[in-house]
């Protein structure tokens, strides 16, 4: 490892990154020291991942300067940052399931047989893997195929892979999200060892308890902006949370809360892939939010209720009818509508006209006998363009030509046309600009006032607080809290979502 064990290794100033339509990073600064753990903290979408991807060479910055290891640098791709001693442990697994542990660890920088260019020395690879894993306190056979490992073991292989070359800076993007306690302890031992060796670590995490446990400094980001850098030892967790979320709620959320009607949707110990024992209910006339961090299992609940993923245990009641098993077709028949978070690929056919999209989920109902009728389609198109105020000169325009907000309205119209009375909307305003967001909120408000029930999944706290009647918070597949409209505060939701203090009931 490197000779120098102290001092600044990475200094970034004025880092700006734009994506079409958004300013992802706005003049961010970050300084990392050798032998220190620097924690990057922020809500989903705060720009942490974008920032580390700029460091690791996946993205290129638009503005700003980076000094690394004593000089100003301008990395062009992953290869260059790897050669410079920067290594990244990705949040998602970057492994090849059909290759062995050793082959995965040395993927991209396999050791060669001396004197035989291009010929891989597998024996050395296995031996080196064994030594490396041994030095990190791991005991796995390097010849095992990765697909035979548990997710936690895979994550550890990912860690070993990142450390299999000479590193000076390691970036860890939520490395503990799929680890068990035992492996987390092991990972932290590895982190300690790296610190002793003078390696700098950038650590992204949502878990508050980890900050005090391994962090030296904490940099908080919010909405692509730099908020502050503080010492992990001195800072109080509540202060960090308010730094993460501390915005004023803007005037974009206007609700006419109505008296909720009867319960139309209720789950009973619903358990499935990545969530368990979920008990939630939605009444007619209510917007209920399912809040929590990405990966907490919210979308999985929605998919199970809509029949896209199996229910393993428990059941749910929809308009008085109990379901233990369901398919999307049956769900639609039972007046359930599901708006996927990925509306461009799962919600709309972009190259089809608006009016055709509107009838897509209700072809059977709209067209008796299976024969399309252009006049009926035109009428429906016109109706929703007016009712939902879709900004287009004509319902015959292609859905792909609409803005994000108007596309979302088309998807909503598509589900209303099926006659559904209960909507599950996943990330209703993702990728929609601020002006159009309030339009969507107004529309949702109008719907519940007409007696619809809405279950909204959202990662945007402002939106959850702004328009919900009630909020359930999920963490690691379980519902950890329920909050009523008058108790809604960002700090409270975050505490339930990250389990900062007494998160679980």
């Amino acid at each position, binding site marked *: 490892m490197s000779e120098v064990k102290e001092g600044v290794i990475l200094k970034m100033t004025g880092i700006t990154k734009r994506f079409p339509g958004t300013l992802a990073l706005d003049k961010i600064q970050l300084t990392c020291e050798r032998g220190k753990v620097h924690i990057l903290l922020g809500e989903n979408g705060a720009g942490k991942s974008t920032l580390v991807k700029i460091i690791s060479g*996946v993205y290129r910055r638009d503005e700003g300067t980076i000094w690394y290891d004593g000089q100003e640098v301008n990395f062009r791709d*992953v*290869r260059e940052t*790897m050669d410079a001693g920067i290594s*990244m442990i*990705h949040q998602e697994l*970057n*492994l*090849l*399931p*059909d*290759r062995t542990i050793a*082959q995965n660890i040395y*993927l*991209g*920088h*396999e050791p*060669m047989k001396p004197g035989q260019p*291009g*010929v*891989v020395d*597998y024996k050395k690879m296995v031996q080196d893997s064994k030594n490396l894993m041994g030095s990190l306190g791991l005991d796995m056979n390097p010849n095992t195929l990765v*697909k035979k490992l*548990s*997710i*936690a073991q895979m994550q550890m292989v990912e860690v070993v*892979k990142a450390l299999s070359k000479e590193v000076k800076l390691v970036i860890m993007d939520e490395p503990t999200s*799929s680890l*068990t306690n035992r492996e987390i302890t092991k990972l932290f031992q590895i982190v300690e060892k790296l610190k002793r060796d003078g390696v700098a670590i950038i650590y992204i995490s949502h878990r508050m308890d980890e900050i005090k446990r391994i962090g030296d400094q904490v940099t908080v980001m919010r909405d692509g902006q730099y908020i502050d850098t503080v010492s992990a030892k001195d800072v109080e967790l509540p202060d960090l949370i308010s730094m993460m979320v501390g915005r004023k709620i803007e005037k974009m959320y206007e609700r006419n809360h109505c008296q909720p009607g009867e319960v139309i949707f209720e789950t009973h110990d619903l358990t499935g*892939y*990545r969530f*368990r024992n979920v008990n939630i209910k939605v009444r007619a006339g209510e917007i209920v939010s399912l809040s929590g961090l990405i990966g907490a299992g919210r979308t999985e609940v929605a998919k199970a209720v809509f029949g896209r993923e199996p229910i*393993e245990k428990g059941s749910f009641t929809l308009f008085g009818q109990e379901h233990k098993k369901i398919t999307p077709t049956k769900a639609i028949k039972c007046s359930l509508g599901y708006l996927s978070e990925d509306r461009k690929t799962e919600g709309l056919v972009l190259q089809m006209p608006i009016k055709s999209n509107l009838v897509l989920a209700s072809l059977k109902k709209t067209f008796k006998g299976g024969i399309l009728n252009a006049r009926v389609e035109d009428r429906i198109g016109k109706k929703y363009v007016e009712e939902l105020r879709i900004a287009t000169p004509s319902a015959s325009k292609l859905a792909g030509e609409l803005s994000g907000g108007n596309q979302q309205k088309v998807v909503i119209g598509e589900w209303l046309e099926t006659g559904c009375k209960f909507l599950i909307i996943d990330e209703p305003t993702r990728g929609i600009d601020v002006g159009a967001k309030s339009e969507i909120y107004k529309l949702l408000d109008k719907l519940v006032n007409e007696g619809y029930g809405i279950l909204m999944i959202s990662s945007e706290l402002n939106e959850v607080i702004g328009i919900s009647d009630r909020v359930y918070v999920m963490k*690691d*597949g379980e519902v950890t809290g329920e909050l009523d409209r008058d108790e809604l505060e960002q700090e409270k939701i975050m505490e339930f979502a990250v389990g900062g203090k007494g998160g679980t009931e």
Partner: protein
Amino acid sequence: MSEIGKKIKGLNVPGILIGDILLVVFFSIMNENFFTSYNLMLILRNSCTLLLTSMGLTLVILMGKNDISVGSVVSMTAVIVAVLINKGLLVPLVLLIALAMGAAIGTINGILVAKLNFDYWVVAFSSMSIFAGLALVTTDGVTVSIKSDVLDYIGNGKILGLYVIIWIVILLTLLMIFIQNNTKFGYDVYSIGGSENVAKVSGVKVVKVRILVYMLSGLFASIAGIAIACMTNSGSPSVGTDYSFNAMAAVVIGGTSFAGGKGGIQGTVLGTLLLRILASGLSLMGIAATWQKAIIGLVIVSLIVIDVLNENRKNIKGLRRVYRNVA
């Protein structure tokens, strides 16, 4: 599990080896002429050109793409060899031109797919059509016979009781298996096929490797074309027509997944043998060639069904494991 069973599993040889053996046993029982040195030699000899074609294709499929233009390259090369030899060119020069042409076609396909991001099916179909057509144009659609002692020796001569061409194919196969299993290039092919994204973030030069693989595919198709010209002493513009399909069949039967990253040339060798054993056995039993095609299709479908069922079972297990982990 027995020691041998463990060894076989360790070698990662697909169940196809057992299929090969079962077929040999079956046909040996059904027809006394099957298990004779003459017939076995014939099967090996008939496997040569198909194996050459499917070897390069294996790497293409291994990295998650496909190249059905190989059959046309086979025809094209056979025809070019015949025409050039008849023009009086020296044999080494003719072979060099033929190999260069195969490699060049492969490289162009590779650049279109890897660098310019064309859909690989579109590239493969166009290329297949172009060279099938050019092969016909070159000889006006007729078969051209070749008179060359050197080529005849390569195709029909024997060393130590084995045809020269069989020796050549054995050597090339061993070389390719070595490249596939032991070189950085081979590793990169598996990585890219396993996941292009993972390969990229791990610093693998994806575009370069892709082009190289396509080049090899074209090169091996042209070696197959030369071999056919040598063995039949002629160049026919339609000789490669069935090769694209059969080569793909050999690769898939051999256990290389269309999804990429899984399988290899060792399986393709067994897959090729299976196809040729099947053809030989069925012919000896008096079943018409037309029926053989249908039967081969059935074999492929059943193998894929078994494969899919296996995968599904594994996936369900995998999901359970993920879930337990979260819980």
